[in-house]
């Protein structure tokens, strides 16, 4: 036991001596949480929009006001309506934008506007007489995320506008919808990103750092020195892992605290449950890192491999950024094999929704099974190495 502690002390010294790496290890989660919290949001403000208003009457004016008053859009004037074009537009009611499609294209290509809204000629009159008027919304969909969000805004505004026309004088017949945004009534993006960042950082510290620290000993030849010491190989491995467990606990605590105090991400469930789950995830990540180090000989390869096989999937296939439900089958299968999905799921339920371990029993047991499997896999491959 004394030998073991001496070894753990050596490992700690290794880590704490490299102040730069340590700074980055602590700094990275801090910066990431701050970036995610302050920069990433679900809302678009002041998107540039241009109107092509062939009618310019009081109804289109009112609609435009509604759109601009929402705060989501600001108007950019990039079209000059020429009188001779009026007739062209009138003839092609279904493709009102045709006469200006060149101009619209140019505006999109320069990145001047994200959306163009076209109102038909005699808009108000058509609503009055024919009961229907046409309006065309053209979005630059080279970024479909932006396009979908912006069109969602417009849809809601036009819908409201129509409804208020429809229910004029019949207000009391309108169903009053009271949406309650459960668990996150301000729709803060940080709610998604704090748990995601934790999973990501834990994977980084545990998996990459462990695999690198072991291959480092191999590459520099100091592994042989360690192997001839009276330390048992299991002690050796454990000694390598302990400092990183310690580091990852500190890092996750920092992230939780930052999320709580800076962005008001709540902690509704029990701390104990979160700690248990986080420890499970840490152990899995450590075992993965160990496993990678078993079949790599240089740090360069260990790093690249853990980056590609462990980091990127944790970022992209965990439901952190992109929802898993819409992914094709084969990606969902990959996501099912990875631990991050279950961890994130469970953490969100407990932290944000105030659930208990019983609510996440499925995720929790899958994580436990993963630990057992990985322990077996590692025992097998470690033996090979010592031969």
């Amino acid at each position, binding site marked *: 036991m004394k030998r073991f502690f001496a070894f753990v002390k050596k490992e700690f010294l290794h880590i704490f001596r490299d102040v730069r790496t340590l700074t980055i290890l602590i700094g990275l989660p801090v910066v990431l949480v701050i970036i995610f919290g302050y920069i990433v949001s679900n809302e678009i403000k002041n998107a540039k929009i241009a109107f092509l208003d062939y009618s310019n009457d009081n109804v289109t004016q009112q609609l435009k006001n509604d759109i601009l008053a929402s705060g989501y859009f600001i108007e950019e004037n990039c079209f000059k309506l020429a009188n001779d074009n009026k007739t062209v537009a009138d003839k092609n009611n279904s493709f009102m934008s045709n006469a200006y499609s060149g101009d619209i294209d140019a505006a999109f290509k320069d990145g001047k506007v994200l959306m163009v809204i076209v109102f038909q000629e005699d808009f108000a009159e058509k609503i009055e007489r024919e009961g229907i008027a046409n*309006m065309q919304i053209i979005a630059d969909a*080279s*970024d479909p995320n*932006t396009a979908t*969000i912006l069109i969602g805004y417009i849809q809601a505004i036009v819908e409201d506008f129509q409804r208020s026309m429809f229910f004029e004088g019949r207000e009391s017949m309108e169903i009053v919808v009271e949406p309650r945004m459960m*668990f996150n009534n301000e729709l803060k993006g940080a709610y998604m990103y704090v748990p995601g960042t934790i999973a990501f950082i834990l994977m980084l510290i545990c998996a990459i750092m462990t695999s690198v620290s072991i291959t480092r000993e191999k590459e520099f030849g100091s592994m042989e020195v360690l192997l001839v010491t009276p330390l048992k190989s299991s002690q050796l491995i454990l000694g390598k892992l302990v400092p990183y467990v310690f580091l990852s606990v500190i890092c996750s605590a920092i992230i939780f605290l930052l999320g709580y105090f800076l962005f008001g991400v709540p902690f509704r469930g029990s701390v104990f449950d979160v700690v248990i789950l986080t420890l499970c995830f840490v152990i899995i990540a450590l075992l993965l890192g160990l496993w990678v180090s078993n079949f790599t000989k240089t740090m360069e390869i260990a790093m690249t491999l853990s980056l590609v096989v462990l980091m990127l999937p944790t970022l992209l296939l965990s439901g952190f950024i992109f929802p898993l439900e819409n992914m094709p089958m084969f990606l969902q299968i990959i996501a099912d094999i990875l631990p991050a999905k279950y961890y994130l799921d469970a953490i969100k339920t407990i932290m944000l929704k105030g659930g208990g371990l019983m*609510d996440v029993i499925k995720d929790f047991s899958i994580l436990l099974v993963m630990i057992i499997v990985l322990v077996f896999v590692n025992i097998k491959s470690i033996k090979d190495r010592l031969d």
Partner: protein
Amino acid sequence: MRTIFYIIQKEFIQIFRDKALLSLMIIAPFAQLVILIYAANLEMGNVNFAVVDYDKTQTSSKLVNLMSASPFYSLIDYENSIDEAQTLLTRGEVHLVVVIPKHFEQDLEESNSPKLQLLIDAVNGTTAFLVNNYSRYIIGDFNEDIVIQRYPEAENMGKINCTYSYWYNDLLDYKIFMFPGLLVILVSLVGLFIAALNFVKEKELGNITQINVTAIKKYQFIAGKLIPFWIIGIVEFVIGLFIGKFFFNMPFLGSFWTLLLYTSIYLICVLSLGLFLASISHSQQQVMFFTFFFFLTFIILSGIFTPIETMPSWVKYVNYLNPFAYLMKVIRMILLKGSSFYNIIPDTICLTAYSIMMFFIAVFSYKKIS
């Protein structure tokens, strides 16, 4: 010039000798490209919902039927109380609970401002926003039908017919959007990580001291380190473009040469950054974390996962210092919108200036004394 050439030759021999790293360098990015292109999709999936019906009338069941008939919604269960429904929300089994209060039908008939409550799981704000919008849309239609039944003349009330066109990506195919972004990640990975690791490795193993005592000038050494990875980066980029074009049928509207020119300037910038980070760090572990830090920050700010439009406006200014943002913006403009060289002149000027600056920073930060 000949000195640089010899260094390049040495680097290539070294790169091709390490078969494991080489294959990782080639296979990994393309595997990523092919797999991850399917990952990005922010569309709303199927929304499971539950109903708490305190009214239990024909009208309320009609509304529920209307909602479950929608292709986006599937009804999971009727619950007896809000508490039970909330448990489902907590466990993530449903995303939406519709609460129909008592006297809903009666209130509708008596024009008594009937109320309806929606409980939306808002942990993911984007989905919550969409679910809210869409539910109100269905409920609004339902409401209008009832009004029209009562007052048939209301049917001819003015309507606005909206047509939506999505230019440059009319089916809102996320693959088309993700592909250029992934290409940027792919070439930047080579640029930042591999080059930086390679440089530091030389330091860590100590053979840089041998180079330090030769007559090789600082700029020659940096250039010699930069050019091989610059070539590899360009080759990977071109192969990536071909894969996109021929396997995924990605649009390629603009000029290939404009894009290639721009990318090669970009690579100089990224590689110089990588070499700069390498020359100020002492071990592979350090440089790995340095580059990783910048990589991640730059990627997020460049707007690949979440649109720049959703970020605060000062991010735009920060992005002048973010090389990834330059390529991310321009590659989409060229590939998807067919923007010409004329459209990207301002970006090209900024990027060129930035690359030259970055190269000199890399040269000056490399010290021949250890």
